[in-house]
Structures are given as structure tokens and as C-alpha cells.
């Protein structure tokens, strides 16, 4: 079987994003530039009583129409919106031998919950099953592939909050191994009751908007969203005259093998993932100019990730958490934050960590507080970690 060829460079030729601070790259970057977060009261589940009441919801209608739209979950629709923007930017990319690689943690679970409640009320035989015909976590890949007539294959993964990072890594290696000619790779997750309740039960949710790396941090703010990148082999992209917006130089994927929900205290697996990305990209720690952190705002993550960054890259590299803008978009976060990283490289502006009044004692790095920072950046890492100790780190280079 063909190996992923390390000499093949991967071009990013399109990016699409939807989250609480915007429905596309332009809106999202404007909010980033203005240090304007998208965190407010939870409105998606009226009537439910949760211990906390904040969320980073995607507001407004999702412009997905047609016959298929009736069968799509909210996660599917978020995915289709983001993929549409990415594919439009990659103007002219051929999709007949493209793959869709999507990461999602819960996918269409919110529709599964609706079905569950409907069964309780109306009984098994009368509850409408049309919304749960897709498997929840393969639905987004299937919906995106269907919407854009993608013929090369679908690969869905549900690796908790590391899912979308994994999806982008998988796609890169399948292009390097010539299993496909292009990839629409990203992730999606809509807010659902189970996740909102579950993180509250774990007491991992901050009652105030999340404050990553802060001395006052108490946990995450739950968000939702989707993002996709269009990836092509560099030479193919150049040959067809595509505008390359960044290079995906490599990725690392590891497991803490430590605990089902908590990260390893010293960030062992996170460090190995960053080292893996450097190795895959044949790059070095000194070359990294910026880290877009996983930075969830939980006590454990921010401390462990900081230790991992120091171990892998040293203490000099600026780090920030974009989750301070749009919360934790769960399975989508790896892709949402990959797009932020790509935009940061393109604009040569590092997004800040909002609400970072005082950094915690266990967080001694430069976290770019409050306002965006213009700076020269050639290489940037985007970290994404999940339940089960799964870690993915993506290395992007300015085009």
C-alpha cells in the first residue's frame, strides 16, 4: 500500500467557518479584530433547567435549503454552510475525486434527543423517525458530500473534542498517499442537551464567560459551530492556478492513555502531539511563532497545556485561546480554530485571549491578553485535545 509521502506539500485553498461570532470568515475576523466575544444566554433549549445559563450559540437561520435539508440535523447544516464557503473560496477545485473528512463529537444528537422525547410522549410507533435516519456522527460528512456531489469518499470520525483536528490530519495523509485528489476537511457540532448537561454534571462549566489561562478560570463555555478547509496537493493547486492561503505542514496525533475525561497533569500526550506535528512537518520548536491553544478555560487543561507547550516549544512563544470568543465548539473546535490560525497567518495578526485580567500562577506564558497583536508569523500550531486523552496538533505555515 502507498505510504503518505512526506515530500508532498499540502496547500490550503479554501476555508469556511461558522460560529457564534460570525457566519463566515469576514464576520468572524471582524469580531476577532474588535475583541468582540459571542457569548450570551442559552436559548436553544427553553424549559430545561441547567446549573449554568451561558452559551456561544450560532444565531440566525442556516441557509441550507432543498429536499435534503429537511433530513439534515443542525450539525449537518452548520457543516454544509462552512463547507460551502470553503469550496467557493477554492474556486474550481474538482470534487469528483475529493473526500469529505469530518470530525464531530455528537453530530446529530440533538435531533436524537428530540426523537427520544417524542417517543416518551407519543410512543415508539408514532414518533417521527425521519430526523434520525442518518447515523448522528456520519451525517455531516454524508450531508456535505451529497450537497456538493463529492465522489472520492467520506471519512467521519468521532474522537470527542479532538475530532476535527483528526479529520484534517487524516485528509492530509490521504492526499499524501494519493487516495484522493482534494479534501474537504473539518468538523461540526451543534449544542445538545446531553453535552450541556454532562459538562455541568462534571462541574467543568464556568458560570461566567470562560477565561482561559486566567487566575479566575472555572471551566468552559459551551459553543457550537463548524469549519472546513479545502486541502490539495501543493503542486496540483499551483498547476490549476489556485490561490493558496496557507500550507498545512504536518500534524501529530497522540493519546494520553491516562484518564477517560481528564488530561494528563503534565500534558504528556499534548507535548507528544506538538512534537509529532513538528516532526511530520520536518520543522523545529524555534520555528513556531504562535500557538492557537486548545485553551478551554478548565483548571486542568490550561495548566497541563501550558506545561506541554513549555516542554515542546519553550517559554518564548506567544499563545492564545480563541475559545474566549466563541466558547468550546467541541468536535468542531479543531477545525474552527484551524481556520482562525490560517486567518492569523494570512493577516499577520495573532488573536488575543479575552478576559485575561490576571494570568494564573500555573500559566506563566504570554497569552496575548485582550487585543489582537500584529506580529510576524511564519509557522503556527493549532492544538485540539479531547476526552479520552486524544490530542491533535496541526502545523500551518504562511503561504
Amino acid at each position, binding site marked *: *500500500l*502507498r*505510504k*503518505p509521502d512526506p515530500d508532498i506539500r499540502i496547500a490550503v485553498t479554501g476555508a469556511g467557518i461558522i460560529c457564534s461570532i460570525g457566519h463566515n470568515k469576514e464576520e468572524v475576523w471582524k469580531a476577532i479584530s474588535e475583541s468582540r466575544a459571542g457569548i450570551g444566554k442559552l436559548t436553544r433549549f427553553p424549559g*430545561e*433547567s*441547567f*446549573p449554568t445559563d451561558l452559551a456561544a450559540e450560532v444565531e440566525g437561520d442556516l441557509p441550507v435549503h432543498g429536499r*435534503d435539508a429537511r*433530513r*439534515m440535523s443542525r450539525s449537518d447544516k452548520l457543516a454544509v454552510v462552512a463547507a460551502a464557503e470553503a469550496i467557493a473560496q477554492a474556486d474550481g477545485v474538482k470534487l469528483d475525486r475529493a*473526500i469529505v473528512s469530518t470530525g464531530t*463529537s455528537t453530530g446529530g444528537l440533538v435531533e436524537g*434527543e428530540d*426523537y*427520544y422525547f417524542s*417517543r416518551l410522549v407519543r410512543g*415508539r*410507533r408514532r414518533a417521527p*423517525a425521519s430526523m*434520525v*435516519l*442518518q*447515523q448522528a456522527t*456520519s451525517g455531516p*460528512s*454524508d450531508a456535505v*458530500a*451529497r450537497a456538493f456531489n463529492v*465522489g472520492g*469518499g*467520506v*471519512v*467521519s*470520525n*468521532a*474522537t*470527542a473534542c479532538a475530532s476535527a483536528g483528526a479529520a484534517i490530519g487524516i485528509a492530509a*495523509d*490521504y492526499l499524501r*498517499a494519493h*487516495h484522493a485528489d482534494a479534501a474537504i476537511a473539518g468538523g461540526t457540532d451543534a449544542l445538545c*442537551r*446531553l453535552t450541556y*448537561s*454532562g*459538562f455541568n*454534571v462534571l462541574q467543568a462549566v464556568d458560570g461566567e464567560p470562560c477565561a482561559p489561562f486566567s487566575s479566575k478560570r472555572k471551566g468552559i463555555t459551551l459553543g457550537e459551530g463548524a469549519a472546513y478547509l479545502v486541502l490539495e496537493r501543493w503542486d496540483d493547486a499551483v498547476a490549476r492556478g489556485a490561490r493558496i492561503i496557507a500550507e498545512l505542514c504536518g500534524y501529530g*496525533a*497522540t*493519546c494520553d*492513555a*491516562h484518564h*477517560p475525561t481528564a488530561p494528563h497533569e503534565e500534558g504528556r500526550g499534548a507535548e507528544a502531539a506538538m512534537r509529532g506535528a513538528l516532526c*511530520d512537518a520536518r520543522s523545529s520548536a524555534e520555528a513556531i511563532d504562535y500557538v492557537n491553544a486548545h485553551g478551554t478555560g478548565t483548571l486542568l487543561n490550561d495548566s497541563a497545556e501550558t506545561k506541554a507547550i513549555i516542554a515542546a516549544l519553550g517559554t518564548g512563544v506567544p499563545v492564545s485561546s480563541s475559545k474566549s470568543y466563541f466558547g468550546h465548539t467541541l468536535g468542531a473546535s479543531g477545525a474552527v480554530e484551524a481556520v482562525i490560525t490560517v486567518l492569523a497567518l494570512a493577516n499577520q495578526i495573532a488573536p488575543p485571549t479575552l478576559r485575561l485580567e490576571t494570568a494564573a500562577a500555573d500559566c506563566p506564558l504570554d497569552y496575548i491578553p485582550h487585543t489582537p497583536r500584529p506580529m510576524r508569523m511564519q509557522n503556527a500550531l493549532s492544538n485540539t485535545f*479531547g*476526552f*479520552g*486523552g*486524544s490530542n491533535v496538533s496541526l502545523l500551518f505555515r504562511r503561504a
Partner: protein
Amino acid sequence: MTRIAITGIGVIAPGAVGVDAFSALLDRGNTAATPIDRFDTRGLSAHTAALVRDFVPRDFIAPMKLRRMNTLSRFGVAAARLAISDRGSELSTAAGVAIGTAFGPVQTSVDYMQEYVEKGAALAPPQLFAESVANAPGSHVGIEFGLRGFNITVTQRESSALAALMYASSQIAKGVSPAAVVGGVDEVSEIAFGVLDRVGTLAHSNGAVDECARPFDRRRNGMVVGEGGAVVIAEAATRKEPYAFVSGFGIARDTTASISDWGESAEAVVSAMRAAIEDAELSVHNIDAIYASANSTKRADRLESAAIQSLFRDRPPVVATKGYFGEYAAGGALQLSAAILAIRDQKLHASTGFGEPDEALISPTRRQEDRDLRHILVNSISAGGGIVCAVLSREAA
């Protein structure tokens, strides 16, 4: 040429725990499907499934850990323990994990929602939430056996386990991990069973025809669902004689498929089969047998049959295994395990459930047969259009 060795198999199957028992199940040629007693099927059309009944989790997992694991995690950890033991020695800590699951933790989500309704959103048990993520089984395998390489959970419906093997093989070939625990887990849940029944996907009795998976048979009217866990050890270098080698993969998507059903384009299936054969640096005539996706639905079997007829002029024997253990069984990893055993034993299995040919369709093997098997093609065709094919080979090169 790169081929990845399969050096261990662990199986928790309907009617069989362990690879020897699984092999014996295939030798007997009988289905492991039985009437469902786990939940009430009154009012439904279908009443049978291939359920795991003889599995005693505490034989494989310490009691303190068992309490933290849902059924899927138990399947995954037990199958991994069997596979590692079958391999004969522990794996390197750099080994990866790739687990496929077609449905994932549907039952755990239902259990959580029941507590949510009864106790309130703030008081549901955290343990159930931790197990409600699809990658819980893979993560437990990583923790239990100290595996710190990649840890990915693939959820591509019927193709999940083959897609997991494809990713793991790419990572081993790339050199990031020396080995991987690869496989699948799935569980038959009342809620998913009910939905599949509602939309007419399941085999059901129909006058003279009893409820049974009948791949490629003219009487087929739907699938029987199965469950279980199956894990193989895939690795670059081997010390012992491996079961088989993984030599190629192909993927494609049928653009005529809706987001929840099979399509009608044999071309896409042909393209995936051809890609897998090319990736293995082989020609179509090198394929000695096909372990088909064939799940006994009208549509998917017709599609696969047309594709096989189109690609193979001299058609090799086709084996349909879903009659034994159902569709979705171990996320597709039981079908894969059967094909690996065929290479090791140089023996094709009988296609249980098949009796009366459909004139338009190919006919699968009727009985077990010793045969020279150098290369076997394994197909998986998913609703929604995803297709993954793999080639297994007897020799390292």
C-alpha cells in the same frame, strides 16, 4: 511495496468469544441470530438480531474498571486483550488505536437521557456522560494497555472498521507508530433497532419466508443487525507468522446515494475496488476471493453484485458473511476478521443464509471450500454512499 501484518485477532461475537470459537462458528455454517429478548419487539416487523450472549466481562476486565465502562468499551477492551494475548506479547507504548463504530454509544445516550428526565439536567450520572462519547472504547483501550500513539474513532456507518484499518495502516506505513490496535465495536439498541424497523431496512417474515439475512438471495428483504467487538493487531514488522497482510485500500463515494440510503451507481463501487487493487500493486485477476459487504437488503446487494460483475470478467468466489453475525457487527470488524481467517486457513467460508439465487445477481459460496487464497478483496458499502475496500494478502511481498 508496503504491507502491514495482522498478528493477532480478538473477537467478542454473537455466538463466539475468542478467535477459535469464531472460526468454529464460521465452520458450522449457521447463523448466530436469535429472537430478541433484550427488549420488547411487539408491534415491530423484525424480531431477531445477532446478539452477544456468552461474554462475561469480568473474565477480561477488573471489577473496579468495569463499573466505568459501557457495553461498547467492554467489547473493545476485551477484544483488545484477546488480540494482544493472541499476538503473544505486549505492544510498544508508541502503538496507536483506531476503532470503528457504526452506531456508537446510542444506548448510553438513551440511558443518560433517562436519568436526565428522571433526576434533572444537573444530576445525571457523570459516569454515563464520560461514556457517551463515541471514542470511549478506544480511549479505554489506550489506558488499559498504555498505548500513546494516535487514538482515533471512525464512525462511517457500515464501513467504520475498514476505514479505521485504512487510517491505522497509513500511520504504520508512514512510520509514526510501529503497531496499532484496530477494529470495531457495536451494540444492538432498542431505539436504533426501532428506527431501522420503521423504515423497512430489517429482514422480516413474509408469508412463507422467515426472518433471516439472505445475502444475494432472491427472497432477501432486509438486514439482520448484529453486535460485538473485534480487534486485530496491525504492525509493520513481525516476529511470528502473521495471519495475513493488509496490502491496499480504496475509497469512493456513490454520488447517487441519498444521505441515508444506498445509491445505484455500481461505478463508484467499481472505482473503490479498483483503487484498492491498484494500491496493493495487483491486477483484477490476482483477486482470489471477495468478502462482500452484502447485507441482504434489496438495494445494497444489487449494487454490489452489479459492481462485481462489471469489474471481474472471470469472477472469483464471493463470500457473504453477514448471515452469520448480521450487519454492523463490531462496526464491520467481524467481516474483516472472517476474511483474515480465510487467508490464514486457506479456506473460503460458506455464505450462510443464501439459498435461492436471484437471476440478476451473483451467487455467493454455498459451502466451505479449501482453496489457494493469495489475495482477498473485502468490501464495505455504506448507506449515505461511502465505500471502503481493502485487499488482504497471504505473503509479505
